[in-house]
């Protein structure tokens, strides 16, 4: 039949095109890796001073900064995720007052730069007291934690609200029709699902939080970038400390992604029917496997 032949040749054409696109992708990706990798090898072999890299002067200062950043990240992460949960709940509150306050919070902290918020807290807040009366001596680190928490709570809040929105209405209805109160239904039924829906977005935001600690250099927190700036201005050798900077940030962000992956696996009930799960299994998005 003519139509059948058409269909067959069509499918053949599509398959050819698919294979062509795949090959182009491989060449592009391979070429990219070769170019960047070559540049990297060249820099690492000609620009980096390996004796200096391990010297206590450099390594020791970076180690101190690293520990400080890890502490700031851990505390700000825990606080911003907890606060974000409250903001997400506020966003879906049936009380218009709570809902609007949560919305306003998100608009403000998402709508102004983190740097501005850090300046308000670090420079602005102590001036609310009479000169010399501000009770906190080393204000930089607490200000940093407060700024990161307030800012990232807004993003986490939006992620959680999105996660809640993605839970079908039928879930709340089923829970309520069993006689659960709205709060109980949220806690037992909706939030566990919303949490899973929101995990990837929250993880993404928390990795940005790690990198946002680099801004703290401008409010005199002795973090990783400020160590780099000090060393760079003394040594005129940017590449050696830059290697440290890169490795240290990657160490934190990669641990963070591991943690998020672990949490995602833990809340993955039933089989993996996500788009990514299906694609990586190679069944091409079919419903049945």
């Amino acid at each position: 039949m003519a139509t059948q032949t058409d269909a067959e040749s069509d499918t053949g054409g599509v398959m050819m095109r698919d294979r062509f696109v795949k090959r182009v992708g491989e060449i592009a990706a391979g070429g990219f890796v070769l170019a960047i990798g070559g540049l990297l090898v060249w820099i690492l072999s000609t620009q980096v001073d390996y004796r200096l890299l391990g010297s206590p002067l450099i390594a020791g200062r970076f180690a101190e900064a690293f520990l400080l950043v890890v502490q700031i990240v851990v505390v700000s992460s825990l606080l911003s995720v907890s606060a974000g949960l409250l903001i997400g709940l506020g966003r879906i509150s049936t009380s218009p007052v709570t809902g609007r306050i949560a919305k306003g919070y998100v608009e403000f902290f998402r709508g102004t730069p983190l740097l501005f918020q850090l300046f308000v807290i670090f420079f602005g807040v102590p001036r609310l007291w009479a000169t010399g009366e501000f009770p906190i001596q080393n204000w930089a680190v607490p200000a940093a934690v407060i700024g990161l928490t307030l800012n990232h709570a807004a993003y986490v809040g939006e992620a959680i609200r999105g996660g809640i929105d993605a839970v079908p209405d039928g879930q709340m209805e089923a829970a309520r029709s069993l006689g659960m109160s709205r709060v109980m239904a949220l806690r037992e039924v909706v939030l566990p699902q919303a949490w899973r829906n929101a995990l990837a977005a929250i993880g993404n935001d928390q990795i940005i939080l790690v990198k946002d600690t680099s801004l703290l250099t401008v409010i005199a927190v002795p973090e990783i970038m400020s160590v780099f700036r000090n060393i760079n201005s003394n040594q005129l050798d940017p590449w050696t400390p830059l290697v440290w900077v890169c490795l240290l940030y990657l160490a934190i962000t990669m641990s963070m992604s591991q943690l998020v992956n672990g949490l995602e696996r833990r809340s993955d009930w039933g089989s993996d029917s996500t788009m990514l799960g299906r694609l990586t299994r190679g069944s091409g998005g079919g419903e049945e496997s």
Partner: protein
Amino acid sequence: MSEPLVEFDGVDKFFGETQVLDGIDLAVDEREVVVVVGPSGSGKSTLLRCANRLEEIQAGDVHLDGRSVTEADVNQIRQQIGMVFQSFNLFPHKTALGNVALAPEKIRGLPEDAAAERARELLERVGLGDQTTSYPEALSGGQQQRVAIARALAMDPTVMLFDEVTSALDPELVGEVLDVIEDLAAEGMTMLLVTHEMGFAREVGDRIVLMVDGEIVEVTETASFFEAPETERGQQFLSRLL
């Protein structure tokens, strides 16, 4: 005659300007199975959802066992009304057992093992004793709907509402769900069902309620409804199905 278990009394329901229920009067006696039929959009599902206040009504009232549904504590009254949905609405993060045990554990404060024991019994009753640890995603539609029935039974309701519970199922899975509902009817559960399965309505229903455009057109004993509906609307409805 004793008082009816469920009684709709002049119920009006509006979605915005549109009236979807118009002066509904209906009484369901204890141990009775009443099947609501009618064309799509006639307000059948809404009628059911007004019984447990998933929908608020604008006029009239619904009484359960003599108590006004609109005045009683909504969470308490819902515990006496089991509801099963067209789309199952199982909790995907809980196993079959967890789905059934959740409400008794959290609402009644039943100890975990007692709730689990009871849930196991209920799952056995719907023929799923071997699927207690399965997550909904791993179950067929028919199995999911039977878990949903077990879940609705877990709070020991005095009446069960079934809202087109076989409409989302593949035809070959409908039977297993209807069998469970028939068993429930045989055990004397009071039930209000909305369905498109006329064969099933005929088999399980004591009375048939025909709804058209938000009104109850006819309430007739099942046998006589299918032989000779009392109203012209009823005859039209049946003739369109044949």
